[in-house]
């Protein structure tokens, strides 16, 4: 634990003993809850062979893998399109032309205020398109609008002197943006951008609600099969670690980017190659 927090002093010997007692009690309670959950699982026969049997079949495995591939496909498309849309909308919001700015602001604010599911359903039901385009469109509109705000905040966070210096060197607005502000802004906002991609990845599971054949949908198909005694809990136990693992991997990337950023270039120690035997010069006959 960190040395001091705002809440406690560094504990003395008696407090340490008391905390240890609390820790013991808390651990016992948590273990009791865990044991109760496991008891419930066993009691309702969730570990019966018949419920886990389907996962041994080739067909079921391919079904799950195809679902996973569809989820990743939707995520990839949505990520690419929303980054592009975010860039366009951010450019619109930073435009010098007032109508463009207003239009972009209106679009961003509207799509940020709408539940992403409403957009997905609207595209799916009203425009009568296939589930995948509907899902990708909905995700793109929502995440693109959020990313536009992220990009804009990133550009605004760049030190004012950078912009002024670039203008005083005689660069045009487009050049100032593309060469000076956007590279630095994107670098500053990388953690936020990746976090938003985690949201997009999580929201691909909304495709389940419009019958897109993604990972959760594959799970539902297996879970509602009477031949395997409705293996609902086993399916959840198989699917959720995969989802949570994928999202955690991406969140971890965001944390990594944030940590990398906190590292200052100026104070970083420079790695110097350790002294060693020098490479022999051509014509050197002492070595080997």
């Amino acid at each position, binding site marked *: *634990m960190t040395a*001091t*927090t*705002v*809440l*406690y*002093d560094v*504990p003395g010997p008696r407090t340490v003993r008391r*905390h240890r007692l*609390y*820790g013991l009690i*808390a*651990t016992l309670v*948590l273990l009791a809850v865990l044991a109760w959950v496991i008891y*419930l699982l066993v009691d*309702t026969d*969730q570990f019966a062979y018949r419920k886990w049997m389907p996962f041994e079949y080739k067909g079921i495995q391919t079904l799950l893998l195809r679902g996973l591939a569809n989820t990743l496909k939707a995520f990839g498309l949505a990520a690419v399109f929303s980054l592009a849309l975010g860039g366009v909308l951010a450019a619109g919001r930073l435009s010098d032309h007032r109508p463009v700015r207003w239009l972009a602001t209106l679009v961003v604010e509207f799509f940020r*205020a*709408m*539940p*992403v*599911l*409403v957009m997905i*359903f*609207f595209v799916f*039901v*009203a425009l009568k398109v296939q589930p995948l385009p509907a899902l990708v469109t909905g995700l793109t509109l929502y995440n693109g609008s959020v990313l536009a705000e992220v990009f804009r905040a990133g550009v605004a966070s760049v030190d004012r002197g950078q912009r002024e210096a670039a203008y005083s060197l005689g660069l045009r607005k487009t050049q100032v943006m593309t060469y000076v502000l956007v590279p630095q802004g994107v670098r500053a906002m990388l953690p936020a951008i990746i976090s938003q991609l*985690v949201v997009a990845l*999580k*929201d*691909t*599971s*909304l495709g*389940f*609600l419009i019958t897109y054949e993604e990972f*959760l949908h594959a*799970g*539902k198909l297996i*879970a509602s099969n009477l031949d395997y005694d409705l293996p*609902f*809990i086993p399916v*959840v136990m198989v*699917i*959720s670690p995969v*989802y*949570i693992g994928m*999202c*955690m991997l991406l*969140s971890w990337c965001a944390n990594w980017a944030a940590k990398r950023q906190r590292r200052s270039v100026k104070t970083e120690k420079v790695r110097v190659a350790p002294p060693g035997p020098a490479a022999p010069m051509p014509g050197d006959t002492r070595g080997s």
Partner: protein
Amino acid sequence: MDVLTQNFSLYGRGLLGTVELTVYASLLALALGVLMAAFRVAPVASLRAFGTAWVTVLRNTPLTLLFFAVMLGLPRFGLILPFTAFAVLALGCYTSAFICEVVRSGINTVPVGQGEAARSLGMTFEQTLGAVVLPQAFRAVIPPVGSTLIALAKNSAIAGSFSVTELLGTYKPLNEMGYSIVWSFVWIAVGYLLVTLTISAIFTVLEKRWGVPR
């Protein structure tokens, strides 16, 4: 326009369902979130580990998967509740992870010197917490809690697909009755804007009343 006037009660019921879900789930999320935040800053290692695990798992779970697991999974253990209660449970637990992080970072915004000063005046732990730390943390926490609860209201749309009466679900009967789909969605959108703008207005008032610029 006819869509709204002729189906006012249908829309009203939907909007009421969304509001009901949002309010109950918010209360659950706030209670659970504060409890988990307390766990995460506790001096007891096992509670901290539990809080961290709760937050990490729930923040990385798709809400649809959570709904799926709660709505269709819990009945397997013989737990039979109305659909709305299940939806509140799923939404509340999901949002509690985000509330927990907001509250925790709120506590961390209070300078360490405040706690040290309070303790050096001889205040007990309860006094430090209640009179010094929490009032300051509360002020810092208002805006992010507001945006988390707005996100909750938007997320409640998922419940409609799990047989809970709420706003988005109204498109289905309207569609079957042959009304214009586009207009029925326009009024659904207006309904959601109504809910989110109300929450944001409430939190603007709260911030005006309690928030302090730092």
